[in-house]
């Protein structure tokens, strides 16, 4: 069966509307609202430290997962497409790892050189 959209083919996927009842969209919609409100609450109540990071990432992953899975219909796709979409972006974690190594090194170097200049520029500081 040819699925290339050549413009003369009738819509063949009417069964899809039956597969996805409207209820699931409303449920996900409400969940997204609740999760957004909760991630805003993290800032509003000024949760700090590791707890802040955990909550921010937790709500982010849940929201992203719900949007991709249901709104973007990923749960109804075949694995051939699911893997093609989800696996390559995992490479970005490599970039994040390289970036954080680089950033730590830069931060260290700036600390050594910029702060040293500040100390030399102000030798008469009462603390020394």
């Amino acid at each position, binding site marked *: 069966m040819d699925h290339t959209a050549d413009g003369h083919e009738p819509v063949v996927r009417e069964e899809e509307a039956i597969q996805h009842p409207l209820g699931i969209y409303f449920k996900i919609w409400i969940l997204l609202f609740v999760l957004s409100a909760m991630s805003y609450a993290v800032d509003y109540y000024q949760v700090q430290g590791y707890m802040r990071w955990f909550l921010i*990432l937790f709500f982010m992953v849940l929201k992203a997962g719900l949007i991709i899975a249901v*709104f973007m219909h990923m749960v109804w796709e075949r694995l051939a*497409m699911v893997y093609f979409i989800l696996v*390559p*972006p995992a490479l970005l974690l490599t970039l994040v790892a390289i970036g954080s190594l680089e950033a730590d090194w830069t931060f260290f170097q700036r600390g050594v050189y910029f702060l040293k200049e500040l100390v030399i520029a102000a030798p008469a500081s009462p603390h020394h």
Partner: protein
Amino acid sequence: MSTETMASDSLELKPGIAGFFDDWSSDQRAFKGVPWGKAMMWIFLVSDTFIFGCFLASYMTVRMSTLEPWPSSSEVFALSFGGAPIPLILIAIMTFVLITSSGTMALAVNYGYRKNKWVTFWLLFATAILGATFVGMQVFEWSKLIFEEGVRPWGNPMGAAQFGSVFFMVTGFHGFHVSIGVIFLFIFSYKVARGHLDDQTPGWFTKRGGNYEEIEILGLYWHFVDLVWVFIFAFFYLW
């Protein structure tokens, strides 16, 4: 050609991981039962993921390496409605507007497949208006930062200079995506209302016949824009 060979492609598709290997090792096409436009939209979205991924990874790198204190987004994006300033409220409202538009878009796709022309039209139109509202609020946010707070891509009075460059680059690129989405939402509202998708009227640019699958493809783009905002909200505004 015998019909058997022609039909071999549409033989029972295997589910699960066996289906994955079957699809990827098959002739001609790996994405079975997926309209061409939808597969192409996903390829575009994966590439766009890398663009935003690179932006966010670079943002992490510059933020971790600066000695200057990073401006507090909670205070920078606070607004006061007569009383005390409410932290980050502008961004919270923008988030809710975008999520609402994602919901109306998801429903538009569903009603499109039911061939319910007018409900699809109104839902698409509502999505476009909500998207335009988001862009409008972003214009307000940018003007406030540029004219009142004095934020520039090369510096700002609140702290690390990188704050401005990251802010304008990341939210600017996202806002650009939203704006393009709003334009296409208006175009497709028009096409739906005029019955172009029911009558399979050829589009002026692609010359391919209209079809309600296009609403799903447009929906993928729109949800992706919302998805990117989820990450920007977490990493830029809440960090």
